[in-house]
C-alpha cells in the first residue's frame, strides 16, 4: 500500500516556495499521439494497418513492415514488469528533486516492450495494468499500476504528480447558482478536498439553494462575478494564493438560432462564457501557475465546462454554440500558456444538461450529479479532456471521425 498523504502543515513563511520544474519536454510529432490519448484517459498505441503490429515507442513507420499506415487505437492494458531500474542520480532538475525514481521495463500483452514509470505498489515480476498519464510537462507517459486497487494508491508521489486529485486541495467553484455546484461540492469533499470556495454573483438577488450551500462545513461563499474584472481582482487578492483547483461553472445559455435570436443574449453568452473565462484566467491563472510545486496542496488544475457543441454547433443554440467554440479556443491558448508551469487546463465537454434551458429537449440529458462526478473523476485521473455523458462522448467520437459529416448531420443534412 502507499503511505496516505497527510494534510499539509502551514507553510514556513521564511522559506521560498518551491519553484515548479518540468520533466523533459521534447517529443517527436509521432509521440504526441500518446499525449492526446493520455489527456482523454485512454491507453492507445500505434497499430500498423498493414501487418497489425502494435508498436512502442511511436514512430513514423511500422518497425516490422515499414508501412506508414499507422493508426492510434485503444490497446489492451495488461503487461508484466520484466525489469526494474532505480535511478539514484540525474542531472535533470525535475528528477533530482524526486530521487530515487523507479522505472520498469514492461512486456505488454499487446506485443511491444515499453519503458514505464512504476507505481510504488508495483515490483519486478508483477502483472500490471498500464495507463497513459500526462506528466507535469503535459506529455503522455506510460505508468504501470497494480492490477487491483491498493490502499491509498492515488497518494503515491508518482500519482500525485500525474493527477490533480482534490485530496487536501482547496477548490474555487465560480458560480454558486449553477445546478452542478452543490453536487460538485459534495463530490469534491468526498474526494478529500480541504476547503471549497464558492463564488456568488449579485448577492443582492436572493436565490433558492443558497442556504443549503452556506450550511455546509468547510465551504465559503465569496463574492465573484466573471463579468466584473474588479470583483475577480478583489477575490484573487484574497484567495488567489490558496486556490489549488478552479472549476468554472459560470455559464450563460439561451436557446435560439442566429437569424431569430437576440444579440443582447449573445453578448451575455460571450461576456460570461468567453470573456469570463479570460478574466478568470487573468485573475487566478498567474498565482496558480506559480504554485504548482507548493507541497501536498499545490495548485493543480483549471477546469472549464464546455458544451460538446463547442466542437460542432447545434443550430437550435446557435449563439451559445459560438460562445462555446470561442471558449474552447481560449482554453487551448490557456493550455499553451499554462504549459511551462505544469498547471493543467481541463476541459469537460458535456451534452445538454437537465436544466431550465433544455426543458423541451428529449433525453438523454446530463444530470448535474453526473457532471459533478465526471469533473472529479477527471481531476482524480489527471485528464485534460473529459467527455461527460453519452451525447458528449458520441459527438466527440463522430467529430474525430469526420467533422464535416458531423456538421451536416447536426444541421439537418443527414436523413
Amino acid at each position, binding site marked *: 500500500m502507499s503511505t496516505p498523504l497527510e494534510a499539509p502543515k502551514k507553510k514556513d513563511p521564511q522559506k521560498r516556495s518551491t519553484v515548479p520544474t518540468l520533466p523533459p519536454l521534447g517529443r517527436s510529432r509521432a509521440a504526441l499521439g500518446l499525449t492526446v490519448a493520455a489527456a482523454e484517459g485512454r491507453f492507445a498505441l500505434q497499430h500498423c494497418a498493414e501487418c497489425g503490429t502494435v508498436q512502442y515507442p511511436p514512430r513514423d513507420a511500422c518497425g516490422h513492415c515499414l508501412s506508414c499506415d499507422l493508426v492510434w487505437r485503444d490497446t489492451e492494458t495488461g503487461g508484466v514488469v520484466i525489469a526494474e531500474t532505480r535511478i539514484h542520480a540525474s542531472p535533470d532538475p525535475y528528477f533530482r528533486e524526486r530521487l530515487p525514481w523507479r522505472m520498469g521495463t514492461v512486456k505488454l500483452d499487446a506485443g511491444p516492450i515499453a519503458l514505464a514509470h512504476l507505481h510504488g505498489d508495483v515490483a519486478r515480476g508483477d502483472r500490471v495494468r498500464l495507463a497513459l498519464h500526462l506528466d507535469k510537462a503535459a506529455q503522455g507517459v506510460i505508468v504501470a499500476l497494480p492490477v487491483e486497487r491498493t490502499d491509498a494508491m492515488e497518494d503515491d508521489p508518482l500519482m500525485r504528480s500525474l493527477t490533480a486529485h482534490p485530496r487536501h486541495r482547496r477548490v474555487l467553484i465560480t458560480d454558486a447558482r449553477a445546478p452542478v455546484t452543490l453536487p460538485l461540492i459534495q463530490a469534491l469533499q468526498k474526494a478529500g478536498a480541504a476547503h471549497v470556495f464558492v463564488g456568488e454573483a*449579485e*448577492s*443582492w*438577488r*436572493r436565490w*433558492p439553494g443558497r442556504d443549503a450551500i452556506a450550511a455546509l462545513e468547510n465551504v465559503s461563499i465569496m463574492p465573484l*462575478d466573471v*463579468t*466584473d*474584472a*474588479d*470583483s475577480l481582482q478583489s477575490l484573487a487578492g484574497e484567495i488567489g494564493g490558496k486556490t489549488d483547483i478552479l472549476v468554472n461553472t459560470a455559464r450563460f445559455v439561451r436557446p435560439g438560432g442566429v437569424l431569430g435570436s*437576440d444579440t*443582447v*443574449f449573445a453578448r*451575455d453568452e460571450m461576456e460570461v462564457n468567453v470573456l469570463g473565462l479570460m478574466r478568470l484566467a487573468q485573475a487566478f491563472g498567474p498565482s496558480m501557475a506559480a504554485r504548482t510545486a507548493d507541497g501536498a496542496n499545490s495548485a493543480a488544475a483549471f477546469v472549464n465546462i464546455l458544451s460538446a457543441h463547442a466542437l460542432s454547433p447545434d443550430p437550435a443554440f446557435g449563439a451559445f454554440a459560438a460562445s462555446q467554440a470561442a471558449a474552447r479556443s481560449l482554453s487551448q491558448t490557456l493550455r499553451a500558456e499554462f504549459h511551462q508551469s505544469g498547471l493543467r487546463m481541463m476541459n469537460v465537454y458535456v451534452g445538454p444538461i437537465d436544466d*431550465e434551458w433544455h426543458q423541451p429537449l428529449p433525453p438523454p440529458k446530463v444530470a448535474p450529479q453526473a457532471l459533478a462526478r465526471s469533473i472529479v473523476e477527471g481531476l482524480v485521473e489527471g485528464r485534460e479532456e473529459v467527455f461527460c455523458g453519452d451525447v458528449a462522448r458520441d459527438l466527440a467520437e463522430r467529430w474525430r471521425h469526420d467533422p464535416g459529416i458531423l456538421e451536416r448531420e447536426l444541421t439537418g443534412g443527414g436523413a
Partner: protein
Amino acid sequence: MSVLTDMATALASGAVRVVDLTHRLDPDFPVIVLPPEFGQCARFRMEEVSAYDHRGPAWKWHNLTLNEHTGTHFDAPVHWISGRDVPNGAVDEIAPENFIGPVVVIDCSQGAAENEDFELTPAVIEAWEAEHGTIPEGAWVLMRTDWSKREPIDYLNMREDGPHSPGPTPEAIQALLARGIRGFGTETVGTDAGQGAHYTPPYPAHYFLHGAGRFGLQCLANLDQLPPTGALLIAAPLKIKGGTGSPLRVLALVPGDRS
C-alpha cells in the same frame, strides 16, 4: 437677470444648498430583474482602457457598459408602450426646460417601514395636500420611502412571488396626473411598486405617466434631505438619440442653513 445673480450669491453663501439625489454607479448596485426569458437590464460595468501604462502612458480611462435604466435614471415617455406615440417622447427630443423644475416630496417612509408593499393612494396624496397645499402644476412629485437606505439584498427584496417594494396605485398616479405634474420619482428600482405587475393596468405608474407624456425618476437617494415643498429639481438625462431613458445626476436645490 438679477434672479440668477441672486441665485449664484445664495449658492455661494450657503443660503441655497445642493443635495445630490444620485446613487453611485457601481457594478454591485441592483438593477431590475425580469423573468429570465425576457431581455435583461445590463449591469453597470467598467473596463479599464489604460491606466498610465503601456496602453496609454499619461492617461487613465474606462469603457462603460450599462443600460439606459441602470442606476439612478430618467424614464422618457417612449420607454413604455403607452407612450410610444407621444410627440418628442425620447430623451433627445424632450425640451430642456423640462429638466429643471419645482419638486414636492410625499413622505411615505413610516408606512414603508411598516409595510414593504406600502401603497401611495389618493388618500395619502389628499392628506399631504391638506398639510402642504395643492401639488402645483408642473411639479415633480417624489415618493420618499427611505428605500435607498436598505441593504442591497433588501432593495429589490425579491421573493418567490416577485419583488416587494412600495409604490403608487393606479388611482394615485391618475390623481397626480390630474394635477398636471411633470413627473414622478421614487427611491426604488422603478416608479412602480415591486408587485406593480398585479395592478390593472400592470405597472400603472409607467403606463399612465408615459402615456400622458410625463417622466419618471427612480433609484433616487437622500430624499430625506428635501423639504416637502420649495425645492428645485435638476434632472437632465444624456442626449441619447432615440433614448428611452438615461442614467443621470439628479440634484436638488434646497434652502440652506443660512437662508
